[in-house]
């Protein structure tokens, strides 16, 4: 028997990526710096959205909490305390690695990175320097047709926060964040422009949010970037790189890269060399500045942590994580488009979905896509997406609210769509009719009542065509508008809308516009 030969999916992906890889090895001319090739690699630090910290059972904090209210003796590095690895953080790390198509290392380990700073109470940060959690993954950038290789993913501790009050001359330390789990995601130097870098971070952000491993919130500091930038003339080997530390918005990161590229080009064009160094970014001046040179680089004295046994991950565990994995954005997009949704509707739905709440420990929050999925069960997906993106989101936007403020359940909206579709409700043909009115009413009055019940209560159910009231209203309308009635009789059908409008007014919107039209045409024949 012959088996059907199929190229395994993964193989297809690889061949495609190789082609793309090849494509961007060819010098790309950038009109901003036509003679230069820009090489960028990014280290992203994403805070793991776990209920408790990486090595203690203290709850993780957010920026709203008063300082030093989420601190245990371990987090403050009290003598006698020991680290205990939080398995939830490992799960979310593995989930992220799988989403990035990376190889989960069967044996990874934890190391101590030493430096003295007041917001690092132990004098060292526990990280995975010698043996990271996962290696050799990649991320596809949809709009730029690029594949960015991921070098490694490692787990590590976040530090506390210190703020210096120059007027008082004191440093204040908040340990709420100290010991929170971080994933450090290190890309290969595969990015070639500030825009590449921007899309990379945005895509990564959407990815970690979709799988619930991080809320990826850059404003609140739960996703931070260090960017390595170098420039070289086309055909020449890579130049000396500089690292720009602690960029916490995509916009500023792109500005910082652009400014750094210009600085390096200016240096090289004036015959000077780029010194390898670590730089900061001044947002007001839109300039990078030197923090420390390579010579001043600290020796972190990495040492395997003697308290933490190696992290052993077997195939069964990885398989379990793979099976429990929430749908990735690429798969969601493909699935929605296969349902017949337009690219624009898909984009809107996924954009709204990406704003859904990221819950603790990888519990998948319900966003716009899940809402759509539930309503479109047994209904026309295109009609459903119209109701969500146009009517519901439109109304919400008008009220200056977002999807997360929506309290209309999937069952309620489904019921509303049904009564409109079945013609039981007036509306959806002329603006301002009952369906939309009902939706507005439901947004105004939070209730579990079904729209069909509400419509009945408000007499919004369509008057059926054989109703004598309907014929009476039609006759009245024809009598009230004799000129228009004549025009219709002479065959000018467009004028009928004015008469239909009059009937709708008489019925206070309860009449079915199509039925009215049919009766009028019959009467005016």
């Amino acid at each position, binding site marked *: 028997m012959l088996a059907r030969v199929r190229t395994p999916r993964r193989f297809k992906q690889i061949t495609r990526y190789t082609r793309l890889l090849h494509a961007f090895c060819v010098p790309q001319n950038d009109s901003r710096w036509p003679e230069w090739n820009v090489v960028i690699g990014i280290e992203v630090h994403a805070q793991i959205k776990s209920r408790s910290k990486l090595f203690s059972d203290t709850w993780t904090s957010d920026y709203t909490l008063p300082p030093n209210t989420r601190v245990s003796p371990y987090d*403050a590095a009290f003598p006698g305390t020991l680290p205990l690895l939080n398995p939830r953080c490992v799960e979310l790390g593995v989930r992220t690695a799988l989403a990035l198509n990376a190889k989960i290392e069967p044996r990874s380990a934890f190391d101590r990175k030493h430096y003295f700073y007041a917001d690092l109470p132990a*004098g060292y940060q526990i990280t995975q320097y010698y043996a990271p959690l996962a290696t050799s993954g990649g991320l596809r950038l949809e709009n730029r047709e690029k594949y960015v290789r991921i070098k490694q993913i490692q787990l590590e501790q976040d530090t506390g926060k210190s703020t210096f009050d120059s007027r008082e001359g004191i440093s204040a330390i908040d340990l709420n964040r100290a010991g929170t789990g971080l994933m450090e995601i290190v890309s290969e130097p595969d990015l070639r422009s500030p825009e590449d870098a921007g899309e990379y971070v945005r895509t990564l952000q959407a990815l970690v949010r979709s799988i619930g491993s991080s809320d990826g919130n850059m404003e609140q500091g739960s996703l931070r970037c260090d960017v390595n930038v170098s420039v070289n003339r086309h055909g020449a080997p890579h130049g000396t790189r500089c690292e720009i530390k602690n960029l916490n918005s995509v916009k500023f990161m792109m500005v910082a890269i652009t400014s750094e590229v210009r600085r390096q080009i200016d240096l090289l064009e004036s015959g000077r060399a780029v010194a390898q160094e670590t730089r900061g970014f001044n947002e007001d001046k839109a300039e990078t500045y030197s923090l420390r040179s390579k010579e001043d680089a600290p020796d972190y*004295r990495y040492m395997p942590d003697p308290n*933490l046994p190696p992290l052993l991950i077997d195939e069964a565990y990885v398989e379990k994580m793979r099976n429990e994995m929430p749908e990735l954005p690429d798969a969601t997009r493909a699935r929605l488009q296969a349902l017949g949704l337009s690219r624009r509707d898909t984009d809107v739905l996924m954009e709204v979905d990406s704003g859904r709440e990221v819950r603790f420990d990888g519990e998948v929050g319900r966003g716009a896509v899940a809402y759509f999925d539930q309503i479109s069960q047994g209904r026309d997906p295109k009609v459903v997406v119209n109701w969500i993106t146009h009517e519901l989101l439109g109304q919400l936007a008008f009220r200056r609210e977002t999807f997360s403020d929506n309290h209309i359940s999937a069952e309620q909206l489904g019921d509303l769509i049904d009564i409109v579709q079945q013609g039981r409700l007036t509306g959806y043909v002329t603006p301002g009719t009952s369906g939309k009115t009902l939706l507005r009413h439901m947004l105004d009055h939070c209730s579990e009542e079904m729209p069909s019940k509400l419509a009945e209560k408000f007499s919004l159910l369509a008057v059926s065509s054989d109703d004598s009231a309907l014929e009476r209203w039609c006759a009245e309308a024809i009598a009230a508008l004799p000129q228009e009635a004549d025009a219709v009789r002479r065959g000018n059908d467009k004028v009928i809308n004015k008469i239909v409008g009059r009937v709708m007014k008489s019925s206070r919107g309860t009449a079915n516009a199509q039925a009215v039209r049919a009766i009028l045409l019959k009467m005016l024949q």
Partner: protein
Amino acid sequence: MPTTCSSAILRNFVSPFDATVVQLLQAAGAQVVGKSNCDEFGMGSLNTYSIYGPVVNPYQAPTSPESWAVRERRSAGGSSGGSAAAVAAGMCDIALATDTGGSIRLPASYCGVVGLKPSYGIVSRWGVVSYADSLDCVGVLARTAQDVKKAFDVLNVYDDKDPTASRPDVRRRASEAVQKSHWNAEDGLTGLRIGVPQEYFPAELLQSTLTPVRRMLENLASRGAAIIPVSLPSTRFALSAYYVISSAEASSNMARYDGIQFGSYVEPPAGTNKAKTSNVYAYTRAAGFGPEVQRRILLGTYALTADAFDNYFLQAQRVRKLVRADFNRVFSVPNVLFSTPSLPSDAGVHVLLHPSTIRTAPRLPLTANQTRCNNEDTLDAYVQDVLTVPASLAGLPAMSIPAGLGEDGWPVGVSIVGQWGCDDMVLEVGSLCAQLPGC
């Protein structure tokens, strides 16, 4: 009660929680009567590096004509000198102590008491102030092996707060391996195979220490034990490896003492640029740490620098593996942590026996001022540990028991060392040895 580790930097530090070992003993009905002196953070072999001053050995030689109060002042050994002295003086029945490279066995030997360093991972380290985490063990000092066992049985439980604690299944595998070892304590010494490692009789070992050990071996042989010479060839590298590893871990563990979150803080002089972290920390750390702790921080910091890491830290880890392999080769009981379970080998030994120390307790300097400098009476302190560090590097259970008196009339200890997880066997053999004449 403050937890000071005999350090100025923790002079007024009160821990917000109790160690698991303290909770266990209290739950079993023990009364805590006090905390004892030690070398600062456990770093030292003579218990002279302490803000409270040196521990004076309570022992008095039977031949000594003076009254006890004016007896010859000798070291109680370290780092757990206070625990050993308190037990020797009868101030308590048992004392807890930590042993990183010999800190229980050395003072036990000098003070003439029994001291057990259990297998690494058997007793919880939650609440124990770390010196070198991969070596630190909590153990027990008492006047008899029976008293040590009584306390050890209470402490020998899995604690999920300690990430290095041996899990219940490993403990079970170890006790199964012991049961197959063809020796039963009820049979007495008959059938017991005792290895004597030839490398444990170095040039530094004083002759006066050797006589009681020799006498004990003769007694054991005459009562049915087989005395078997064995070789542990990596022993000669063990001391250097130990000091590299323990100092590296110490330099890391001591980093938290900066006076910010807890402990003593020394205000930098007026005009110091406090924006620089090192300026703020330097005064606290220079004033808070004693000379030995500072020495090991510097040594360990160097061993971990990028340039030295391979030649020092990694090299020491390789030696550590060799030392462990040496032990695994000579024991009849397999090491359940490393080998796939194999049958006990008939050629191997049940336990090893060797002198605990290279000499009897050294004389203390006469004045407190002299405790801080190298004195001719004080042997190079690091050599004191030469016989105790191999078991620490391999994480093996080791117990020092009194073996009689040296020529100077002061106690001499011998150490019984067993395979990992054979703590009970070590206790049983130690208890049998202690019943021999002359002990």
